[in-house]
């Protein structure tokens, strides 16, 4: 089994307070993996650290055994829907075409072949007839599908999605799930941040159970037992949170030396 994502001793701080402690896990390729944990357990922070948007206080991440910069074009990121202002003046097509931007074509214009790929991506999420629609007129589920289409247009091998099932309608949920299965069948790797335990068991093959520290990781059959779930959802570790507070208060480094 090959490894898509490996984090090694990852400690990440937000506003100087560590929100992830020594996260150490591997995610296999070709599987649908769920990163599961209660609200405020650091799931989004973990994704941002993996995608290089936050610099970790210590530790590192490897993607396909390489540094992020070497494999960027193979990796696609679907941020949380609420992280942008949907009143931006753009059409659905404009947004999906952003998936075709690359650092290597900085000055170049979008080509017809890019438009074809974007249209194909829209078709996959059943949004092709909306391609000229203003993004401000979309429903929450449609916005989510546009974001997924944008990432599909990138043509990556690894898809990292932040809470794609939050606030979407049943049609969107089904469309996303079908897509995840299709991607898996094509040998792609999908990693999804998800907070709902009820559905997690149906959606994912592999689980990373998180609550500011790594609780457990492995195939879902091994993870979904009462003891582990209680550990993850039963609240934060008291002493760990207090140490985090202290670090923030005293502006202390997480490692003696970097």
């Amino acid at each position, binding site marked *: 089994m090959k490894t898509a994502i490996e984090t090694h001793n990852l400690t990440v701080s937000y506003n100087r307070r560590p929100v992830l402690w020594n996260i150490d896990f591997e995610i296999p390729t070709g599987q649908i993996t769920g990163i599961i944990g209660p609200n405020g357990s650091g799931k989004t922070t973990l994704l941002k650290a993996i995608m*290089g948007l936050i610099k970790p206080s210590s530790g590192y991440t490897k993607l396909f055994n390489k540094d992020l*910069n070497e494999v*960027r074009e193979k990796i696609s990121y679907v*941020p949380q829907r609420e992280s942008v202002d949907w009143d931006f*003046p753009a059409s659905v097509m404009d947004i999906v075409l*952003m998936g075709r931007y690359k*650092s290597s074509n900085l000055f170049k214009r*979008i080509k017809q072949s890019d438009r074809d790929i974007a249209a194909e991506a829209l078709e996959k999420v059943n949004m092709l007839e909306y391609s000229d629609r203003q993004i401000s007129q979309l429903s929450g589920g449609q916005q989510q599908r546009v974001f997924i289409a944008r990432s599909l247009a*990138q043509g990556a091998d690894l898809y990292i999605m932040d809470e794609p099932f939050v606030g979407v309608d049943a049609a969107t949920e089904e469309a996303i799930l079908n897509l995840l299965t299709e991607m898996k069948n094509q040998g792609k790797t999908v990693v999804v941040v998800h907070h709902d335990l009820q559905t997690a068991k149906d959606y994912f093959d592999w689980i990373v159970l998180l609550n500011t520290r790594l609780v457990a990781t492995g195939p879902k059959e091994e993870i979904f037992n009462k003891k582990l779930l209680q550990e993850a959802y039963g609240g934060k570790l008291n002493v760990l949170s207090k140490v985090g507070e202290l670090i923030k208060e005293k502006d202390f480094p997480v490692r003696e030396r970097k």
Partner: protein
Amino acid sequence: MNDLFQFFSFSDPNVRYVTLGTMVLAATAAMVGSFSFLRKRALVGDAIAHSILPGVCLAFMVSGSKTPLVLIIGAIITGWISLLVIDGISRTTKLKNDAAIGIVLSVFFGLGILLLTSIQHSGNASQAGLDKFLFGKAASLTKDDIITFSSIGIVLIIVVLLFYKEFKLISFNPDYAKVIGLPVKFLEFILATITVLAVAVGIQAVGVVLMAALLITPASGARFWTHRLGNMIVIAMVFGALSGFFGSYISYVAPNMPTGPWVVMCLSILAIGSIWFAPKRGMLAKYKIQAENKKKILVENVLKLFYHLGESSNNFEAERSIDELLATRDLRKIELNRGLQLLRKDNSVRLKEGNWYITSKGLNEAKRVIKLHRLWEMYLNQRLKLEPDHVHNDAEAIEHIITPELEKQLEKELNYPIKDPHESIIPYNKD
């Protein structure tokens, strides 16, 4: 009239320079400002404008010259420093961005005024006119100024064209831009630099104090007319150029009128006009929709009066007096009359010897509304498990908004019910 003719003939070279210069300045500021507007950095432009004053003064003190290029270089330097300081303050301290902007704006501007005052009292005769940076000096633009500004304007346009799609992405979703490996820091640097440049050039026309208007107002107005970024920028530039034109014209016709403030006034009129009159997004369009909704509700409610009376007397075609109609429902007489007049124009009701009766067209429409009302009551009762005595008020509102598609869906989902929760018959049209 003579003024108008003289102005438009552009025979006076001064008029030509002032008008052209102001138009170029306003259009380029509008283009760059569109991105500030979309990135929600409207006030940063204001801070840059105020921070440019000390730069202009220092450049003059060091070089002793007033050529625009020298002053612009000074302006860029302090404009940029102000950006870095704003960024630094909000990154390293607990202060939020708006506080940082406020602090930087006032400190730099205060420093600028200090320098300006000391220059004015230095006895240096060539300093005259430096204070024009406060409120602009559009009326005294020269040919050389125009050449400098136009060249800078062209450079700015080229930069925006080159980086258009990247600027679009970092304005919409900067995190995504970082993830796909775009040099976001570099792009932000370019965007900040062209903003500083546009401000440094723009304050020559309208001055430090009014510069923010030149950046933000055109984009704010343009946003109401389009959903496309490209169109928005072009409209903003047209707004800027038009305001430059009319501002110059007004100050030409009325010689004591300053150009800069008039440019800003024209811009504001365009923006306020857009807020009011733009189709769909404008306030007027919104009021119109609300008025139409009200009308629809009134008309449908009046039709229902006829239906209810017909249903209880088992005679739908009977002629009804105003008093009879009023007794059925809590409706003011004036509203009822208005509704009846509207329906009469529509051939839904007719007047006969002071009494009203409903036509077959009106009756069909009344049936439709009654049906929707009763279907919705059924839906609330069955799907939301509401008691029959809790569903009526809700249905009173919803009956007016359900579309034919939703109507079909409701019918199907409820399996074509015959009676509503109050045992009233649901009327189906037989077509």
